[in-house]
């Protein structure tokens, strides 16, 4: 570790992984509820499980992004973090707010939570992914401001690299677009229109900048390739991400009220959204191919390559298959959407956080060349288990979605009802759940890899091999 203050990232990473475990547990519960409809009813109704599942995801990714920033910005800036104290304080505030919110979801009926937190004063609750009580949302804004202030001050006094600038642009965008979550008019169409300014402009906009910056940082570190080369790639990738993604938001405007020109704009621009992800694959493989040294942390290199590939599959390919308006007319809001959502979030965002954790955690634990042999083997096994099972989940949901469309959406007469269609899909939902269990086992193996192998082995086993 170059600077003492980079160590503040550690609790962020650990807590992110704990929340990740929670997310997967609730995912398994929901997967079973798709099969046994009344499983755990009325103690954990589906809507509660889903809220916990998706909110845990968002929060652990935010913890991951924050940890990543605290780790990489001082190193890129070549200076200590502006205020390690503030970073530690905001960690506890954010963690407490997150835990309290999740407990609120689980322990009281949602309507009660809305009443307790005085949602009527500024109604923002009850919209997908933005279910948090208004007070929690305000807390998120405060934490984000403190975080960006801390990172911003560090960048101001230090070296302004391209990675730093791209990262901070992404973080500022994240905070700015979240403000749209406070806009909730009585008019559902306006509500939905600007709801996407949080959701789409996050995951198909500014989060891609954050993803690109973290990936570029890890690639510089594990390959030793010249910064100039990597920065050029980074600019091209994020340029394409913004050029396709901003107007690509139109693919969400097909069927919720806005006019028909969005059918064209949304289709054309979102059809381009796979391009930056494809460039990311080329980028990662080329840079690793041109590496100047063989970093001892092979697991981190694998995560970097894997992130690019899985993000391309999930966000790129699985996004494309249902993004053209004539296709989306039939697939909108079906299990196809769920398939895309799972692979895209895992491949792009969960994996980039696991990637930076894989690179940074060993260093913070005094293992500059990565974990020991056994630990890395286990981590790599976990990598493959999670990736393959997530592809299994995605394929199962894709089959479920296609069948759902065929039974429920396509027939002009004699279409099956939603509930009858779902009953027919149960065998496929079993397959999905089985892959979900495998994924959970992969996660257990991943967590175990942190505790396998001693420090001595880590230091002895990984001398840097000479460049051939």
């Amino acid at each position, binding site marked *: 570790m170059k600077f003492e203050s980079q160590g503040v990232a550690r609790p962020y990473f650990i807590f992110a992984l704990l929340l990740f475990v929670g997310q997967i547990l609730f995912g398994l519960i929901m997967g079973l509820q798709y099969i046994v*409809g009344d499983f755990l009813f009325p103690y954990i109704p589906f809507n509660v499980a889903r809220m916990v599942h998706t909110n845990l995801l968002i929060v652990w990714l935010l913890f991951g992004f924050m940890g990543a920033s605290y780790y990489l910005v001082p190193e890129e800036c070549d200076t200590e973090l502006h205020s390690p104290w503030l970073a530690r304080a905001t960690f506890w505030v954010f963690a407490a707010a997150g835990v309290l919110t999740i407990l609120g979801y689980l322990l009281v009926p949602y309507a009660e939570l*809305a009443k307790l937190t005085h949602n009527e004063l500024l109604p923002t609750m*009850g919209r997908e992914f933005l279910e948090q009580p208004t007070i929690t949302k305000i807390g998120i804004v405060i934490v984000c401001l403190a975080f960006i202030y801390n990172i911003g001050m560090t960048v101001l006094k230090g070296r302004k690299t391209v990675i730093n600038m791209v990262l901070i642009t992404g973080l500022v965008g994240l905070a700015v677009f979240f403000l749209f979550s406070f806009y909730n008019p009585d008019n559902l169409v306006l509500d939905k229109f600007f709801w996407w300014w949080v959701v789409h402009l996050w995951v198909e906009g500014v989060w891609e900048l954050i993803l690109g910056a973290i990936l570029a940082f890890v690639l510089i570190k594990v390959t030793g390739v010249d910064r100039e080369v990597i920065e050029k790639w980074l600019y091209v990738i994020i340029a394409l991400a913004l050029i396709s993604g901003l*107007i690509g938001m139109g693919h969400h405007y097909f069927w919720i009220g806005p006019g028909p020109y969005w059918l064209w704009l949304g289709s054309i621009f979102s059809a381009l959204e796979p391009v930056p992800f494809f460039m990311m694959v080329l980028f990662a493989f080329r840079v690793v191919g041109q590496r100047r040294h063989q970093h001892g942390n092979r697991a981190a290199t694998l995560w970097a390559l894997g992130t690019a590939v899985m993000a391309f599959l999930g966000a790129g390919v699985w996004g494309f298959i249902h993004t053209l308006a004539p296709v989306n007319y*039939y697939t909108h809001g079906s*299990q196809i959407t769920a398939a895309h959502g799972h692979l895209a979030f895992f491949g792009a965002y969960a994996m980039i956080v696991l990637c930076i954790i894989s690179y940074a955690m060993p260093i913070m634990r005094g293992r500059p060349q990565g974990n020991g042999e056994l630990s890395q083997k286990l981590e790599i096994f976990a990598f493959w288990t999670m990736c393959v099972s997530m592809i299994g989940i995605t394929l199962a949901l894709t089959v479920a979605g296609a069948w759902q469309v065929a039974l429920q959406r396509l027939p002009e007469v004699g279409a099956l009802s939603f509930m009858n269609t779902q009953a027919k899909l149960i065998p496929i939902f079993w397959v999905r759940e089985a892959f979900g269990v495998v994924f959970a086992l992969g996660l257990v193996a991943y967590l175990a890899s942190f505790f396998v192998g001693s420090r001595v082995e880590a230091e002895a086993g990984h001398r840097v091999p000479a460049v051939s």
Partner: protein
Amino acid sequence: MPELFTKGMARNIYYGGGFFFLLLLLGLTLDTLRALPQRDHRENITESVARGKAVWEENNCIGCHSLMGEGAYFAPELGNVFDRYGNGSEEAFGQFMQAWMQMQPMPTEGRRKMPQFHLSQEQVDDLSAFLIWTSRINDNDWPPNREG
């Protein structure tokens, strides 16, 4: 070695392209906001519709259902539920909704269950008004059929 495509060019595409398309998005947004009143029939958003939206939100209906295709995919689409169960009559739909909300959760074992939300009669009426208003938004003819 001179390069055909330099980092400076890449940076300019990023800043220039990002800025241009952000402006284009803002322009299109402005245009859409001007066109929306004809499509969302906002003149029909009564007090009851507005209260109904609050009922919808404060009970996290979106956690199971989808509304105009957005939300969860665990329970039926409700953007067109009026077309499905209303038989064209607001009154009939209102009565159906009162009965339906009353009988939840249904006792069928193994079936997906909707919780009992203990809504008042007025709240259910508001919810019905909200769903009826929603069903009449011009949404480019989605969904393909009445099953949603």
